[in-house]
């Protein structure tokens, strides 16, 4: 069995690490081996954040090589573009339509936010799913649900891990109070997948 590589990217504070943790818990629930790698510290202050997740029967190492990701899940458009070259030729990108302009764009240093970023992404990668996860999260009444929604989108095309594994992972990770909302968010993700 090959190792499946999932790259997560976004901006510090968006819940990327939580999302990765749920995915890893779901893999463990499925009885698979999993390794995840992330960088803490400086990245928390609005910088870009990534998380490498590798799932399989036996996963010896934790970093995904550039060009080796089966999936890229990005919480923000520019961070989706930045990590697009991590994808395999047949890799799939799931990108949230949110645009967060970095400070460098306001300062006119290094150019502004790419105007036609949707077009660029679609031109660069063959399998791209763009989704307005923030809008769905707002409809659910909690913007923090974005990460669960995106996992729902992933699970639609992700045969390795069953839906029930994701649900068990969500139950493990969150308090009973917030779990029902998380499960609903996951469901909405699947619907939009």
């Amino acid at each position, binding site marked *: 069995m090959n190792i499946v590589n999932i790259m997560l990217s976004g901006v510090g504070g968006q819940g990327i690490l939580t999302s990765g943790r749920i995915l890893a818990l779901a893999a463990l629930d499925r009885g698979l081996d999993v*390794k*995840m790698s992330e960088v803490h510290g400086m990245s928390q202050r609005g910088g870009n954040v990534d998380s490498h997740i590798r799932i399989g029967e036996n996963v010896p190492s934790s970093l995904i090589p550039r*060009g080796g990701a089966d999936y890229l899940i990005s919480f923000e458009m520019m961070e989706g*573009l930045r990590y697009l*070259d991590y994808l395999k030729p047949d890799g799939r990108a799931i990108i949230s339509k949110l645009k967060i*302009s*970095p400070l460098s764009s306001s300062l006119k240093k290094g150019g502004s*936010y790419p105007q036609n970023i949707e077009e660029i992404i679609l031109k660069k990668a063959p399998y791209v799913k763009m989704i307005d996860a923030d809008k769905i999260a707002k409809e659910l009444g909690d913007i923090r649900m974005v990460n669960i929604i995106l996992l729902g989108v992933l699970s639609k095309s992700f045969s390795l891990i069953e839906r029930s594994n994701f649900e068990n992972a969500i139950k493990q990770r969150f308090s009973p109070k917030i779990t029902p909302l998380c499960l609903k968010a996951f469901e909405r993700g699947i619907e939009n997948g």
Partner: protein
Amino acid sequence: MKKLMLGNEAVARGAWEAGVAFGSGYPGTPSTEILEYLVKYDDVLAQWAPNEKVGYEVAMGVSLAGKRAIVTMKHVGLNVAADPFFSSSYMGVNGGLICVSADDPGMHSSQDEQDNRLLAKAAKVLMVEPSDVEECRWMTKEAFTLSEEFDSPILLRLTTRVCHQTGVTITEERLTPPLKRFVKDIAKYVLLPSNARERRHRVEERLRKALKFGNESDKWNPVFKNGKKIGIITSGVAFGYVYELMNNEASIMKIGITNPLPVDRIRKFAESVEKLYVVEELEPYIEDTLKAMGIKVLGSELRPHTGELNLSIVERMLKGSESTKVTVDLSDVKINHRPPTLCPGCSHRGMFTVFRDMGLKVMGDIGCYTLGAINPLKSMDSCMCMGASIGMAEGLDRFGGEGVSGKTIGVIGDSTFFHSGITGLIDMVINKSKATIVILDNRLTAMTGGQVHPGTGLNMKGEEAPKVDLVDLCKAIGVKRIKVINPYNLEEVKETLEEELKAEEVSVIIAKAPCVLGFKVKLGDVVEVNVELCTRCGKCIRVGCMAIGEKDGYPTIDENLCNGCGVCVQVCEPKALTFKKKN
């Protein structure tokens, strides 16, 4: 039962399973979470120390008491703790003692990339290197036994990709370590030269004993046999890459105890294969030993000497090319950097805006405020190591000459000041420096995630604790000019700086405001823009706040991010920015 854990969490778990009684350390990425997980166990006393040296010494005292102890730090922290680290090697231990050095290849959040394996060798202590999460747990646990068995502190050397790797591990019950008490032993514990000379022999003896153990241990230094053609020696995080790529076509030796290196085992392995590689990150530590033994080996000439390894680099090294190719070409698109920035509402922002606008020479330090060096604030002229701002400000101010002397300040956070700034300030006082020191007092060690420190008034468990008062402390060491200011009032900041820079003696300015992130502070109403009044001068954008965007040259405010600190309002001369009144 199998559990998902962070590498650092597994280290804490391993220590707990070994019956550890005490944990200390100073926060530093990538080591911080070890102690934060350890404090969750009620049967362990875990506490932050003001710096790594003190943390190490307390742990050593616990060891003398016969209990097991662990002390955690990042790689550069071991420089601070180097004095007790080297000397404790001669003393040996009573209860097992582990010192964690979390190295940061690639410098994700560090000022250097030093390879602390070299320090373990220099200090002649045993060193253990896990390669994944499960090894973090069991190696930590069993390292306590090694420590007691070989009468040596253990350097548990981790790297970022081990510390911050999440993976699967089993867990075991907590055991009861051998019952030990403090035993008076002057010859062992008092390092007078005459005693130290005797202990020096014991150190060599212990390394010989440990070498024999390492040579014979299949558990610590396993060999995965697969033919004679290629042999690879590796350790730590590099093992994962090697195993994944070469498990089917090479024999692999993984070294878990990397000091002393199991040289006889290595020689035997080398003789059993036709071609030998060493795959290790950073310094050619294992490789140099092999070469000194006269063993022909390939290694550092095939890889970069700086930064982290990854699958692609190791594949190129061992197979000449990579099987994974980049197919998405991003060379023709401009993607802006997204560096970390000070949080909206951060009390440092206004300070650095004033430093910049006054053209001060700023000797900086380690903490969130190091971000004051980044565009658009760009108002930090040096940042070297913990506490250096003060001594460097003294030196620069004294010899800087025109435009520098009298315009130099040292800027340091409160936690960093407690860590290693106090002695620098004493030097300024006794040697009659005229420079000005600014202490940014936000009551937390913020950059590493908001840990408590001696000025917080809380301990690691969140219980009330005595608080060191910065003003009293500065007074006690002889500083006469001490001003406490509000960092959000830019006029006050500027006036105080002007006054204190003129003073013919040491001044300390304490800018006091709690960390908005750590204490969840909401400062005021959000700001709004009156485009009628705006002259598009850009001053507000140049305070470097994530809440301020730009459209057609006019500022825009993200109301979800704005904390209402008012720094942008104060720099806006035409008064186009105002606090939005609540309806």
